[in-house]
């Protein structure tokens, strides 16, 4: 009993040393057997999740960059999600394959001693597994699956790859991918090939065997080539994913949207047209209703639109339809700020105040109202930004920017123009 307690504490200290991120949550002795349950700490799980997410983002970005899309937009969406936007891509399936492929490259030894037929019937030799080599017949396009018994434990993985290139074989002009390893990988590869001369080495990518050549001699120099039955385009894409690195975890497509170029153009054109018309309508209305004061408001309004677009450009936000709608809404609110001010000034003049006093009182009284009303909307927009996803978020950003810009233009710019006309130019009357 003392012995097992000693052993247990010894085991514990070894575990603590080797795997500090694991915590022992249960340990008990039953029938002289020690059972221990270990658990990863929550912080560690979070760290791994985050690392996998970051690495996936980086890998996908690398792959897309090498795929050659003009303006890709790749961003994390929280909770292990990544949003990828690829304008102008024609072959969607190819892009999806390129992005979604795990690209886990493994070199595994073929198990020649084991009984393949037995393994297929379910009598798996310990430490081995059955993988398939897929061969495509060029003429018929039919693919055949060839089972092979391989050792489960990979001798080497693709993590040491520094470069991958497409080459063409001499005989049939068959494309292949040649990979280069870094110095550590080169050393490992030469050691492996040296130890297993005359044995077959299976090159496994994402669980499928590409080829399983016999090792003729020790391969030093840090190069290996992957042959298989693929088209030049497939070889090209394979080289990209190998260069960009493997994904830390498999990805699944959760959401997919394709908008045809013509539809995109159509809706943008219609959106811009309608916005333009709405803008003209508002400007005309203000100028007619408030005359000079309306024109001041129009100036503030135009400046507001310029500010919003500048801010959006600075934030590098993509202008979507809900985003555009957000701008239109803010234009409405910016007009309202001016309406509030002008109505107040009118009210004050009715009380018999001079124009200067009326402008002064109008602005100061409207200020509080504008602030309260805009802050309420801003709060709604911020909550929207915080809890919303995708397009809702884009809408919230434009709304926030718009509210701040419109308050600024209505309160400061309009005020500045009024003061300039009244005090500098000494105007006695401004039509309102």
């Amino acid at each position, binding site marked *: 009993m003392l012995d097992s307690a000693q052993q247990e504490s010894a085991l514990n200290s070894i575990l603590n040393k080797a795997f500090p991120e694991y915590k022992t949550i249960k340990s008990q002795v039953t029938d002289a057997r020690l059972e221990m349950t270990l658990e990863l700490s929550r912080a560690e799980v979070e760290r791994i999740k985050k690392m996998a997410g970051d690495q996936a983002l980086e890998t996908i970005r690398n792959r897309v960059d090498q795929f050659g899309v003009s303006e890709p937009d790749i961003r994390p969406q929280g909770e292990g999600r990544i949003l990828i936007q690829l304008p102008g891509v024609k072959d969607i399936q190819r892009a999806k394959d390129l992005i979604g492929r795990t690209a886990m490259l493994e070199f595994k030894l073929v198990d020649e001693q084991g009984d393949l037929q037995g393994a297929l019937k379910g009598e798996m030799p310990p430490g081995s597994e059955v993988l398939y080599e897929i061969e495509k017949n060029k003429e018929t396009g039919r693919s055949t699956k060839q089972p092979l018994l391989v050792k489960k434990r990979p001798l080497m993985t693709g993590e040491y790859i520094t470069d991958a290139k497409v080459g063409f074989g001499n005989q049939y002009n068959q494309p292949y991918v040649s990979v280069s390893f870094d110095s550590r990988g080169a050393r490992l590869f030469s050691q492996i090939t040296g130890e297993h001369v005359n044995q077959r080495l299976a090159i496994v990518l994402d669980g499928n065997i590409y080829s399983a050549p016999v090792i003729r001699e020790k391969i030093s120099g840090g190069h290996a080539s992957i042959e298989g039955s693929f088209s030049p385009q497939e070889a090209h894409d394979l080289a990209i994913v190998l260069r960009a690195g493997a994904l830390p975890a498999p990805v699944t497509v*959760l959401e997919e949207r394709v908008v045809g170029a013509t539809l995109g153009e159509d809706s943008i054109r219609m959106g811009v047209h309608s916005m333009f018309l709405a803008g003209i309508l508002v400007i005309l209305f203000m100028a007619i209703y408030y005359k000079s004061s309306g024109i001041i408001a129009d100036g503030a309004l135009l400046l507001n639109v310029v500010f919003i677009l500048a801010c959006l450009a600075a934030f590098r936000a993509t202008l979507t339809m809900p985003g555009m709608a957000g701008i239109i809404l803010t234009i409405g609110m910016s007009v309202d700020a001016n309406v509030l001010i002008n109505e107040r000034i009118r009210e004050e003049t009715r009380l018999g105040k001079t124009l200067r006093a009326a402008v002064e009182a109008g602005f100061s009284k409207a200020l509080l109202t504008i602030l309260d009303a805009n802050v309420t909307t801003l709060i709604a927009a911020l909550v929207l930004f915080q809890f919303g996803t995708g397009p*809702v978020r884009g809408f919230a950003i434009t709304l926030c920017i718009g509210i701040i810009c419109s308050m600024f233009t209505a309160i400061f710019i309009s005020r500045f123009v009024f003061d300039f006309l009244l005090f500098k130019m000494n105007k006695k009357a401004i039509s309102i």
Partner: protein
Amino acid sequence: MLEFIKPGINLNFVGRRKIAYTVSFILLAFTIISIAARGGLNYGIDFAGGAIIQAKLSKPVPPEKVRAALDKIGLNKASIQQYGIKEGEEYLIQVGVEHKNLGELTTLVKAALEESFGRGQVDIRRNEMVGPKVGETLRQKALLAIYYSILFLMIYISGRFEMKWLMSIVVAAAMLLVTYIATIAGMSVIYLIVIALMVTLGVCFLLRLKYALGAIIATLHDVLMIIGFFSFFNKDIDLSIIAALLTIIGYSLYDTVIVFDRIRENLAKYRKKDHAEIINSSINETLSRTILTSTITFSVVACLFFLGGEVIHDFAFAMMVGIVTGTYSSVFVASPILLIWPEALAKAPQKAKIRA
């Protein structure tokens, strides 16, 4: 001077509030009946999950033929909708979540349509796919976003208009905590939000957070109206509609706050006057700006509705309904609610004066 509303106008809004309440109740009942009759709301693929394919044909084809073509490939459950201005040229084909691979599905649909209507006659203009899990999360997030925004607005309004910062923060924090725990515990978000809203309104009533109560009721009123219209016209609720709903929450509050602001100002100015009278004259004083702004905003959104194209059509529709009800609710719903406690209102101006 061009004036739509003459100064010194004094319409009796407050006195007619019973009529307004009746109208609102009838419309709300109508909303609930409409939703119940249709067996719930129509969620777009954003919320329900599924795939959508937009196909344009080079010559008009009646919908029955499109359906027949799709039946051949086993898509008999797909919903087929006409799209765009020209009849029969463009169709939206919507299928359920069981089709996982969008690329394959699109090729299949295109092939089926081409077989029926001729090679090269079909242009796939858009295809989208949303996984069922994403749709579920999006729906829950949208609902929670609406509820959270209401809580934050309650704090701001109670704080600004009644100086009840502490009280409203405590209430909001408690509600936030309870909903958060309930979501973690895995409670159905829809029921949770309905219950949470009821509780919030009840607490506002008990604690006499009357400005917040008025604003929240007016806002909910508008949101329900839009949902009612969408249910009645059998339109899909998707992400852009949620954006519209949240904008309307903002707009309706904006409008309400402007009237409240004037009420607060007038309460401080005329201490002796009857409250109903003050509220009514405040509505009248702001009427000119209410009508002006609503008209302008409405015409902007109407431009979008008629000229903005199909993509933004439903969004603009929701906004149009929202602007009308938002304006109505700030005049007829939010302000009269302040009269529930006439004696409590009397305390407000003193506090407002200290702050001013």
